[in-house]
Every structure is written in C-alpha cells, then in structure tokens.
C-alpha cells in the first residue's frame, strides 16, 4: 500500500502510541482547537490530536476530522523519516539530510484509481467554508489552512513549500501568504504572462510529504522527486480536476484545494501568529480563487499549531540537516547541531565539536551563520555537551564563555531578500547583529574539570534495580519515574 496519512496514523498508534482522539465538537474558527492544544502544552504533553467532530465555518458539523500537533515530538518526526523513535535527536537530522539529497521519480495513476479523486467538489460546490479551518491566535486576521502548497513553474518543475491560505468569509476566494523564494518566483512568472497561476493546497498527506517540502532545493529541482525520497517510494500523481495533466497532484493526499492566483490581484493578509511567536504584520498577498476541492473517503484535514512545539521541529530539523551539509566537509570534527525550541527552531543553533582546534569555534560559528542567513545566534560547545539538552548548553555558556573574548558579533545583520522588493525575514526578530558564542572549554589556561559521576559506575548500578516498586512506599506512586 502507498504511504498516506492513514497508514502513518496506524504506525503512530503502534510505535509511539501518542495519538489521542477527541470526540466532543469543537469550533476551530473560535480558537477552541488552539485553546486545547495550549493547555496540553502547558502540561508539557505533546500528543498528536485528532478532533473527530469539528464544526465548519458555518457552525455546522464538518465532514472532515482535524489533525494537529503531529510534529510536536521528534520521536514522531523520527517515525516519519523511518528512524527509530528511540534515537530522535541528530539521527533525525541526518536522515533528513540523506533524504533531501535523494530523488525518486513519481508514478502516474489514472484519476479513477486515485484516492484523492474519490470525491470532487467543483464550481459553487467548491466551498472552503465546509472545512474545519483553524483560527489560531487572538489577532490572526482569520482562520488559515497552513500546509504544503504546490505550484508548477513555466519551465515545468513542481515546487512544494509551506504557505498559508487565509479564509476570508467568502466561499471561493481566499488570500495566500507566500513567503518562499521559489513560489514567489512562480507567481511572478505567471504575472509576466498575464496568466492565472495554478496552485494547490495539500491539506492532508503522510507527514513525510510535508517534511519534504521543507528541503532546501535549488531552483529547478523537481520537488515531487524529493518527496518520493522522503516517502521512500515513488509519489503517486494523478491529473488535477482543473488543469488535467498540465498540473499533476498527489494521488494519495487526503484533501486538496485546487486554486488559481489571478495575475496582479492582491488582498489584505495577516496578522498571523507565526513560527517565532510574533504576529506577522498586515500586508498584501495574492488572491487565491478556489476551483475545486477533492478528497478521499474518510479524509482528515491537517493543521500546524504555529509558534508552539508543533512547528519547532519543522524549523529545526531542516536547519540541522543544512548545518551537517554545509559544515561537515570543512569541519570533520563536527559532532552535532541543534536549533532549540527556545529559539522556535529559527533564531539559534547549538553546535558541538570533537577535539576543538584553536580558533575553530569562531570559524565554525561564522560558517554556520553564512550557511543559514535566518539564524541570529550560534553557540559552539564541546562534544561532551549535549546540544539537545539546553540546560547543558546554557551551563557551558555561563561557565566557559568569555564575554571579553568569546563573542563574535557580526554587525550589520543579514536579511532574506524576496523578489517582491521588500526585505523579508521569516518570523525573525531582525535585530541588526548576529552573534557567535564560543562556549567551549577554555584551553589556553588551567581550568578545573567538569564534575562527573564515574560513567562505569552509572553503567553498573541500574536505578530501576534499586528503586522500590511503584506503590510499595507511601507517596511513591506520585513520583513520575521509577520501576513499574
């Protein structure tokens, strides 16, 4: 069976077991979904959550369950990338890098065999108001569909990227917030020819499909082949309802909205509470005219809880993979890289190195900033500091970093430049300086060693062999760790 969202949900039930289903009706457009996810986050609980009875934009029961928080743990991201969830840290980043470098050609199937063509709404029936669209934050301009969008360039290649399509209380007209270089370029290509630009929003598919759309491909790369690499099998495609074989769509998607961007038409877009936990400023973005909605039987609509754990791994894992790709050849003693949740998977990268050479911390930090223009802070530590354990990294900063000599501030900052003529930086705070913090152990003077319990004794003396069984000591049952 081809990989799809349902097959992945079965895998989650078996492997990580952290998918919960909520039966009570919820109003996604009245913040009820994010209110519940926020309360889970406050409890430091990060299950994937499927709301089985959400209401649509008319306040009526929607035909589509709503799935969110899927990316909130690296363990589930590991499963998406065929990595053992017991090793969810740099192993996942390395798997992402490997899959991003791969290509598997897609396979075409007939529409009558394509699950996503089992149901087709066209014309006046293609009303997005029947979907359970989430309004996430108090100042969001409206409910938003924020998953992978696909466009096809005039040269013929398909580009898949995350974007956001905002519901505007109109059955057929939305506004799409495009922020990636390649999708923006494709919009411009069509505008130059004064033609409407086809665009699809793939709102449900195997989560590796969406992870693949975060791979940093060069212009001209065929993203459907990259997605195949992430899935580990050919992505099945089928002709779209609107454009036929001129625009092929993922056959095993749960739900696809086919739309067109009319040339030159813009509408008001944002605020939206973005990845970095700030509202994006109101601006003008392309209009999205809905042409068709196609979906499989039992389709589930996917959403992302932006600004919270659900989206941090989406930023962090591709950046960690990019660090590996950019730094490994030049710095073979690179150990690991991690973009922490505290930086929303955007602003900071922690890098650990083996056997640091003099001056190397500064060099590796600057090389990391060069490779990742959106990153504002790089902290370099020794390999005995686990970059995935932030208290350890901060301990190294507070203990080892020499403010007088260990900071490199790069003065003028670096901004992403879009082809829309404005400086864009995706949810960045955009301060003008960028910094490298050398938090490696000082080597140029006597320095006391870090205190450690002998590891051979930790290996010999197993905690669970010594702890009393649960419930055998008064009050022990309330301690969250211990032998069962």
């Amino acid at each position, binding site marked *: 069976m081809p990989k799809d969202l349902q097959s992945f949900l079965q895998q989650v039930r078996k492997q990580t077991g952290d998918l919960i289903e909520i039966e009570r009706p919820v109003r996604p457009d009245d913040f009820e979904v994010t209110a519940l996810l926020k309360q889970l986050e406050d409890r430091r609980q990060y299950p994937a959550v499927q709301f089985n009875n959400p209401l649509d934009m008319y306040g009526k029961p929607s035909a589509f369950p709503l799935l969110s928080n899927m990316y909130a743990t690296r363990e589930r991201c590991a499963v998406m990338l065929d990595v053992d969830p017991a090793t969810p840290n740099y192993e996942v980043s390395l798997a992402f890098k490997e899959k991003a470098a791969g290509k598997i050609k897609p396979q075409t199937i007939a529409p009558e065999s394509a699950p996503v063509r089992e149901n087709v709404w066209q014309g006046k029936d293609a009303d997005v108001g029947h979907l359970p669209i989430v309004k996430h934050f108090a*100042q969001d301009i409206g409910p938003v569909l924020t998953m992978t969008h696909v466009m096809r360039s005039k040269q013929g290649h398909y580009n898949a990227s995350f974007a956001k399509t905002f519901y505007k209380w109109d059955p057929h007209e939305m506004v799409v917030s495009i922020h990636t270089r390649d999708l923006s370029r494709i919009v411009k290509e069509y505008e130059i020819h004064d033609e409407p630009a086809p665009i699809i929003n793939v709102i449900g598919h195997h989560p590796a499909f969406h992870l693949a759309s975060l791979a940093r491909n060069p212009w001209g790369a065929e993203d459907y082949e990259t997605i195949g690499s992430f899935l580990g099998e050919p992505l099945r495609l089928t002709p779209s309802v609107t454009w036929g074989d001129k625009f092929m769509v993922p056959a095993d998607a749960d739900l696809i909205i086919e739309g067109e961007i009319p040339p030159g038409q813009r509408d008001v877009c*944002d605020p939206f509470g973005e990845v970095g936990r700030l509202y*994006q*400023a*109101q601006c*003008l973005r392309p209009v999205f005219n809905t042409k068709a909605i196609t979906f499989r039987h039992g389709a589930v609509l996917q959403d992302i809880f932006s600004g919270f754990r659900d989206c941090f791994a989406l930023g962090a894992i591709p950046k960690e993979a990019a660090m590996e790709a950019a730094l490994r050849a030049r710095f073979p003693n690179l150990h690991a890289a991690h973009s922490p949740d505290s930086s929303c998977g955007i602003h900071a990268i922690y890098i650990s190195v083996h056997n640091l050479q003099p001056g190397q911390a500064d060099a590796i930090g600057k090389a990391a900033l060069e490779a990742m223009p959106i990153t504002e802070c790089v902290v370099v530590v020794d390999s005995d500091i686990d970059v995935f354990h932030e208290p350890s990294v901060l301990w190294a900063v507070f203990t080892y970093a020499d403010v007088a000599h260990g900071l490199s501030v790069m003065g003028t900052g670096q901004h992403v430049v879009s082809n829309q003529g*404005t400086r864009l*930086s*995706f949810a960045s705070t955009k301060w003008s300086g960028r910094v490298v913090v050398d938090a490696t152990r000082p080597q140029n003077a006597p320095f006391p060693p870090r205190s450690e319990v002998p590891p051979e004794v930790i290996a010999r003396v197993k905690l669970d062999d010594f702890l009393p069984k649960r419930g055998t000591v008064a009050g022990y049952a309330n301690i969250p760790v211990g032998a069962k």
Partner: protein
Amino acid sequence: MERLFMAECPVCHQSFACHYDEMRHSKVKLFCPSCRHRFVPEEAASLDERPDAARASTD
C-alpha cells in the same frame, strides 16, 4: 530591522502591526483582525509609526 507601524482600530481600539511600505501610504484599507472593520491608516484611532516602533515581523 523591517519598518512596521502599529494601527489602532477606530472601532474596537485593538492595535495591530502593519507593513509600512505596503500599507501606510498605498490607500489600501487596513483590516482590523479583531472586529473586521476596514479603515485607511488616516482613520486610525492612533498610529505609532516611529521607525523603530514595532519589533514584530512580516513574512
């Protein structure tokens, strides 16, 4: 840093960030995310358009 301005809705008095280059002088009506009132910047209850006023981001 990106130049933004904050606009206060004349109806519900919610303030929200707007992209300066695209929204301040383009005659486009702002859209209040709280009450959906549409207004041009000159109709705002208040504007904070100091060059370094807003530290929120645009995409």
